[in-house]
């Protein structure tokens, strides 16, 4: 099953050269995809096109077999949720619970059903104890987890995270990433995660890494494939490599293939024996 299918997408910003031209990308349901690229590579634009926040010039986007058209927009969006970069600019409610409620109110969920749904969503991200707090008293990482809960309450099949950890401190970021891992574990194939980032360590958490450059797909594959085969290309694009790859390359005796941080640690430990 395809979660998202993009055919021949074309898009340009006003007064600028075309960003996307004959762009194709298919994302399988249940995948965890990292969309990476430097600033201006079109990754955030792509997310906005998928959500219909921007109007494409040409091409076709389908979300779970539902073509994204003006009539279908509302229905298609019900299947998707998005967490944006700035934690403050997506907090609509006055308190944590109000914010989670906002989406439910839009979907006209009956008032008496809301508290249970809000609590469940906040529990999933570990923020239930903060339900009555104002955003002002939360850290960036906590706000992003609330944003995630707001999205989860609407039970989307696809969650897009647009640089959701870029403005967070290391702890906040670790907490958000851990929440994502837990979610993926809990929902499995029922949840498709699309993570836009330019952090390669974050990207290495995904099952599939897609590298964009000026609206073109330059690398696409598992983290192993992308980081092994494409290391020169990634460097050329100014994207860098995940920490584990950097360490591996600096070693005298190098591991036979790509290892993530955990695997690399295991491998190094076996060398000692």
């Amino acid at each position, binding site marked *: 099953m395809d979660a998202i299918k993009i055919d021949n997408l074309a898009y340009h910003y006003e007064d600028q050269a075309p960003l996307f031209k004959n762009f194709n990308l298919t994302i399988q349901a249940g995948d965890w995809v990292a969309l990476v690229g430097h600033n201006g590579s079109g990754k955030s634009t792509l997310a906005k096109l998928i959500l219909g926040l921007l109007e494409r010039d040409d091409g076709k986007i389908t979300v779970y077999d539902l073509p994204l058209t003006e009539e279908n927009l509302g229905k298609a969006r019900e299947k998707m949720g998005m967490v944006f970069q*700035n934690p403050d600019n997506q907090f609509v409610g006055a308190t944590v619970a109000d914010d989670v409620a906002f989406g439910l109110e839009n979907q006209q969920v009956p008032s008496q059903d809301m508290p249970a749904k809000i609590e469940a969503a906040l529990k999933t991200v570990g923020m239930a104890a903060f339900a009555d707090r104002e955003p002002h008293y939360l850290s960036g990482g906590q706000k992003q987890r609330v944003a995630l809960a707001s*999205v989860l309450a609407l039970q989307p099949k696809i969650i897009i995270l647009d640089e959701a950890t870029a403005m967070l401190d290391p702890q906040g970021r670790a907490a958000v990433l851990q929440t994502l891992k837990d979610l993926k574990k809990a929902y499995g194939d029922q949840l498709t995660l699309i993570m836009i980032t330019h952090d390669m360590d974050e990207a290495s958490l995904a099952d599939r890494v897609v590298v964009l450059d000026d609206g073109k797909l330059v690398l696409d594959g598992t983290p192993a494939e992308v980081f092994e085969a494409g290391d020169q290309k990634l460097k050329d694009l100014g994207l860098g490599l995940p920490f584990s790859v950097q360490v591996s390359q600096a070693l005298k005796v190098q591991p036979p293939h790509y290892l993530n941080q955990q695997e690399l640690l295991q491998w190094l430990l076996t060398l000692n024996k």
Partner: protein
Amino acid sequence: MNKIVIGRYLPGDGWVYRLDPRTKILITFIYVLALVFTNNWVPYVWATAFLILVLALTKQPLALYWSGLKPILWLIIFTVVLQIFFTPGSPVLWHWGFLRVTTPGVVNAVYVVIRFVLIILMSTVLTLTTPPTSIATALESLLGPLKKVRVPVAELALMLSIALRFVPLLLDETQKIMNAQKSRGMSFSSGGPIKRAKAVIPMLVPLFVGALQRALDLANAMEVRGFQDANQRTHYRVLKYGHEDYQAAAVTAVFVVVFALLVLHFG
């Protein structure tokens, strides 16, 4: 940042917190309206007593309200100066050119200060004890009948709640921008009024740009979460009058009746 009290909600468990937001809005409205009808110290004493009762029932420290008044001190002083120097009448206590201080001017100034402080404190109680969304929901409910004459009540209520939600954020941002510019040698507190006014411009530009960016981001976030029509939404916070509201109504009724009698008697 914590200095700003006006317009800010502070969680608490006082009796006032348990009131329906509609009750609080109506009482605030009645109170403010009542104050307009008097120019005598006796009703003001009665109104002050009522306010003190309300403040006590919020269970918030009085120091908090005092710090809430501080930012508008200048506004009060400005109004007092206008009242003192530009109220005609006799006897004239002092005059210099077109400036004259008259007894009615001084008396008026005192009443203006009292009225100002009472009104500000009462509305601070409203915003301090009621989450912005509840105020918005309450206004939507109170102004509901206007929907019939095509006033976009739901949209306005949502706009209001979002505006209130962004007040502390924008104040924070103002502080940040000011600090950033101070750190590069800008002074907001020295020089004449023209120089000071000029210093504000480089602060306002980034503030506006930032606010617009926030607005665009927020619009996207709202749209993605399924916002389409403010009229086709359910509400998380359901308003319901409880026995506290009836108690409040009774107390307010006593206040209004006594106040009216005092005004009739003393003017």
